């Protein structure tokens, strides 16, 4: 017998819309209920106006941040996952590289941003490199840990059929890490958004982080609000795209 639903599908849709509306309603409620000035809590209209006045436009700033984030994360994924698998497969590689990777992973990523800005100036290379290293190192370390827990049935299979290490790396280790890596990839994506914004805040002339820095120096609370909203949207869009692409490209993935 089918169980009776307490809330219909349309009821859940209504609840979802209410959930989405909660934040803007709270914003407007606090703003107008407590008569808070635009200096501390801008109205939505002020935020939109401040964004429209920008030159270069907000879209150009978003594109700059998205480009740095996208290229850095993509490069980090392409290098980090195979590197983790290779570290697991080769003891020689592990002994050589792990001490450096472990020590680098223990340094808070934000703490190294100023070094990159000082070494590489305002160039794009520094900003890509910051994101790339954060993603690649975290994923490589994750890969080693994931493969250390490789299910015994796969070890038995490799041994039984005498699968050579290179083949095991390509056919088993790399896809195995991919199949489990999505939560870690989403985590490093969120870290990367913070890193890109912070690196732009310290040294850039275009990008959402740069806008926050400019708005802070001119006390433009409306612009800070607007940029924060766009940074959130940017992260959500990247995250949703990543999940969708992952599920489509790796449908066997358990995560």
């Amino acid at each position, binding site marked *: 017998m089918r169980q009776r639903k307490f809330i219909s599908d349309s009821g859940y849709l209504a609840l979802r819309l209410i959930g989405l509306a909660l934040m803007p309603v709270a914003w407007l409620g606090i703003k107008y209920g407590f008569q808070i000035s635009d200096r501390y809590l801008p109205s939505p209209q002020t935020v939109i106006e401040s964004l429209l006045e920008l030159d270069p436009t907000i879209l150009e700033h978003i594109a700059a941040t998205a480009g740095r984030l996208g290229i850095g994360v993509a490069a980090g994924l392409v290098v980090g996952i195979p590197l983790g698998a290779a570290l697991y497969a080769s003891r020689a590689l592990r002994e050589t590289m792990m001490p450096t990777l472990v020590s680098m992973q223990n340094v808070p990523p934000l703490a190294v941003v100023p070094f990159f800005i000082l070494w590489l100036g305002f160039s794009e290379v520094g900003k890509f490199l910051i994101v790339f290293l954060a993603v690649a190192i975290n994923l490589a370390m994750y890969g080693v840990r994931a493969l250390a827990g490789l299910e015994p*049935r796969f070890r*038995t*299979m490799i041994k039984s*059929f*005498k699968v050579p290490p290179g083949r095991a790396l390509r*056919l088993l280790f790399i*896809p195995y890490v991919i199949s489990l890596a999505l939560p870690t990839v989403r985590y490093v994506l969120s870290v990367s958004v913070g890193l890109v914004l912070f690196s732009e805040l310290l040294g850039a002339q275009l990008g959402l982080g740069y806008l926050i820095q400019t708005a802070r120096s001119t006390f433009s609370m409306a612009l800070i609000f607007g940029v924060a909203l766009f940074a959130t949207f940017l992260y959500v869009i990247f995250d949703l795209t990543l999940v969708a692409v992952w599920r489509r490209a790796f449908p066997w993935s358990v995560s």
Partner: protein
Amino acid sequence: MGERGSSSADDLKPASDRLPWIRASELTFSYSGNLIFDRLSFCVTSPLVALQGPSGSGKTTLLKLIHDDLEPQAGSVSLDGRTAILILQDDSLLPWLTGAENIAISKSFDPRRIHDPSIMASSEGFLSKRAYQMSFGQRRFIEIVRALGSESEVLLLDEPLNFLDADRRSTIIRELLWQSSHRRVMMSTHYIEDFDGAPVGRVQLVGSAPFRELEIV
């Protein structure tokens, strides 16, 4: 996958009968503090052996010890240097590969090693499917096919007939009987009655752990 007609059939020489091919001496193994085998000694001579015992008694553990996947705390068990393939109950097909690609993981796979041509023919239908899209029975069948067609002197099979339908089960049983004239086979199975009087030796784990001796028929 190996090409038909391209590989030698060196490993298809008849297995010499009645010489011990598994030797265990004072084998002692415990897992998570539970002693499973206590100074167990035995020899297996029959080329086709069914390993029997209640669920959870240690059949898989014994197969893993024979395959050298587990290390005994004391004593030894050996195949006297013979090469072996172990197929566990948990399927080891890679979900991201097709059936054909999973079979091709075994570089030594050659369909000529499989006596019954209907076995390869009946797997044709799902060789192009990825493993995660196959049913349990299809995955099990591909795993058994891969083992049957691969080079090794010994096959160690943990419940090889599980999840197979009646037709495939009887086909695999016939094939195992044929294979046992060319290489040694040990399998744990709950389908021993399906072998219908065929010459199958039996190694029985009697009672409960720790096992000090096995009943060998």
